[in-house]
């Protein structure tokens, strides 16, 4: 039915759900979503696989569902990774221009990027992304394409995202075990930001916070390029766990209470209000104070934003975020979450919308699907670049080919 070469699949193995999004690249390079498959995730904690057998089952179910919906056979996926071990930092590479006429050639650009990627990482770590930011020619800032310019010294800034090799391999091996090829691994936060932000917003400076089940990823764009990435190993699971502990109810109940009565602020209206939880026969088991529930949750939500705010303040990035903050992930569904985030981050906060894709729009414009859509979008960027039809605006440079073959 479809020509398989146009099919791009993003697979996110999340803490609360496994989600596969099937996209089809249309003639003018855009991405058309044609299928989604999802499955409850049981083998993942804090964004990392802890039970391979169960996770494998869940991934298989999600893939099968996506295949049926899109009516395609999935062979390759772009795999999202996250986890508390993932770190990002900026690095600068330097390269002297040696040619006689001092004109910067394509080779010089390749060399300087190679230099920037030569990073001293701990032996057990591996680079996930090295994303080009800006070139400097003889100290001149803000050069986006130096080929053809004159200069004696070429420098480039890259943003490097790296993680623990073995822990990254766990997810890759799991997917390979299902007879699927991993085209590339992508940091979830990067994928989310690709799905949410328009070029204007990237240019203005924006912060994307993806509050997932197990981890919270965040990515900062300044001047059109990624300046900062971070992972906080706290997510919706922690809220459920807090509630289970604080209200003394089983985890599954806590999860349900969180969804039904959760809030990021303590509503005045619920003061003194209680809910009775019942067992499967409808008999009352326990009465829970809704005010306590919301207080426990609101403290956790506040803390997540405070930690991020602190991190960004240390990085000195607050003044550059003029487009504001965009939330996604299941956590963005918590009522009033933007109201809590605004005073802490001191800028406008909104729930992100996946603008730049077409097809199945209404069904997919939900915060939970942002990462998976972003993964497919990342894939479409890559594909386009490979085909050489258009130059890649985001300048994202995957360095994972070798790494994948090694596994």
């Amino acid at each position, binding site marked *: 039915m479809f020509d398989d070469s146009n099919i791009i699949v993003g697979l996110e193995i999340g803490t609360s759900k496994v989600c596969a999004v099937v996209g089809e690249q249309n003639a003018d390079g855009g991405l058309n979503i044609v299928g989604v498959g999802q499955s409850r995730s049981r083998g993942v904690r804090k964004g990392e696989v802890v039970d391979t057998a169960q996770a494998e089952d869940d991934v298989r179910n999600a893939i099968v569902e996506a295949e049926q919906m899109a009516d395609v056979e999935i062979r390759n996926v772009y795999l999202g990774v996250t986890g508390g071990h993932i770190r990002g930092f900026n690095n600068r590479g330097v390269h002297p221009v040696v040619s006689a006429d001092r004109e910067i050639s394509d080779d010089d650009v390749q060399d300087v990027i190679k230099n920037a990627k030569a990073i001293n990482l701990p032996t057990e770590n591996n680079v996930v992304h090295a994303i080009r930011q800006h070139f400097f020619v003889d100290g001149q800032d803000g050069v986006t394409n130096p080929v053809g310019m004159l200069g004696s010294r070429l420098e480039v800034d890259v943003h490097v995202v790296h993680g623990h090799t073995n822990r990254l391999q766990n997810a890759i091996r799991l997917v390979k075990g299902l007879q699927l090829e991993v085209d590339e691994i992508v940091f979830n936060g990067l994928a989310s930001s690709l799905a949410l932000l328009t070029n204007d917003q990237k240019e203005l400076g924006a912060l994307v916070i993806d509050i997932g089940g197990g981890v919270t990823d965040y990515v900062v764009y300044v001047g059109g390029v990624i300046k900062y990435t971070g992972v906080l190993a706290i997510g919706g*699971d922690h809220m459920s766990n807090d509630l289970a502990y604080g209200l003394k109810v089983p985890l599954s109940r806590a999860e349900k209470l969180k969804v039904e009565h959760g809030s990021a602020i303590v509503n005045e209206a619920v003061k003194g209000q209680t809910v009775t939880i019942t067992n499967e026969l409808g008999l009352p088991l326990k009465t829970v104070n809704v005010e306590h529930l919301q207080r*426990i949750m609101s403290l956790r939500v506040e803390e997540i934003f405070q930690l991020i705010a602190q991190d960004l303040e240390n990085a000195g990035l607050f003044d550059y975020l003029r487009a504001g903050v965009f939330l996604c992930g299941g956590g963005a569904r918590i009522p009033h979450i933007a109201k809590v985030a605004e005073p802490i981050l001191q800028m406008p906060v909104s729930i992100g919308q996946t603008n730049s894709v077409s097809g199945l729009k209404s069904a997919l414009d939900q915060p939970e699907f942002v990462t998976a859509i972003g993964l497919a979008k990342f894939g479409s960027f890559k594909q386009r670049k490979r085909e050489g039809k258009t130059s890649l605006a985001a300048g994202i440079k995957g360095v994972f080919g070798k790494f994948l073959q090694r596994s």
Partner: protein
Amino acid sequence: MKVKTESQTPETEMNSTRSVKFFGIGNAGMTLLDAMNCEEFAGANFVAINTDATSLAASSVTVKIHLETKLLRGLGTGGDPERGHALAEEQFSTLKSACEGADVIFIVAGLGGGAGSGISPVVARAAKETGALVLAFVTLPFSCEGNRRQQQAQQSLEQLKSVADGVICLPSQKTFKLIDENTSVLDTFRVTGNLLIEGVRGVWQLLTRPGLIQIHFDDLCGLLRDRHSESAFAFVEATGAARSREAVEKLLAHPLLDEGRALAESSAVLVSMTGGKDLTMAEVNRVMEQIGRHCDHAQIIMGATIDAAMKNKLSVTLITAKQNAVAKTEASANSPEEMSLRETAPRYGVRQTSPTPSFSLDQREQTISRRGRRAGSKMLQAQLPLAIVSKGRFDKSEPTIHKGEDLDIPTYIRRGVPLN
């Protein structure tokens, strides 16, 4: 068991319509009650409760409750709070009827022994059931009195906190700062007792004297309740022209406030000032300003009352409540090195407390009749002095540590936010 009522004290004749009862429990509690039984506390009802008939007979208090069964053979609890507890549970109805008719009940006891530690929580519960507000003033034993007493006192304190509206506790060890080398043992205990009585007097005045700026009892209870807190208090008096400055200086040098350090650490402070008719607003302002400067994070509740008899005199009662108090109490009883060590270690403010054990009749008999089998009671499993917070689903996963804080532990516990 018998309730001896030698003479009925007249019903409260104070200007407030609240009737107040003081319960002295155990030997320490009775001694304190005897010391309080003077005209200053006129209008209050005193009730002494003990398991030891001889000391009860010596008390000057009029209403006495002697808790006794055959199994104790008139020898008291022998320092075993479980025996005291079981005994009190058995005669719960008697205690409850003794509590009836009071709006506010003060419990005065020395924790660590058998009667004080065992009976106090039960009395507090009985009082609570009659609908009275319960405020407990207790001392913790000196650290030289041994581990066992400390542990018993701590356990009892936790139980008290869970039932009483407010617990104000005075670790006896702190009084070492007030005494010198030559102070006799008798005097030392008197000093501790006096400190506690001062605290009781402060609260008593708060409740009985007409206030210009009223502090309600609810304010006081709200301050003490649900903060998982140890509260510290101080009562100072000053006279003369510079009395407001003198009072503040005395407060900041007060040993029970750790030279003002307790103020800085407190999360809530209640200040009550009493002066003669000549008390000026400027003086009130000066005292509050100084105190406020030392505790910028705390919630401050203030009150001022006029007492015509207090000519040229100003008395200030200060009660502070602070979080993470359990660790603090222990720290104060230990050496300074250990204290500083504990200060730096992360604390989570919450300790697992075992629920008050409920006894069947047989078990009670057994516990009480255990006298003579000391070795048996030594085999009891002690509580570990650790803050154990289960991490639930994250128990086995890699902890999320941020600046030494384990983020897997619920935020509200790490921040000590009370859920009332």
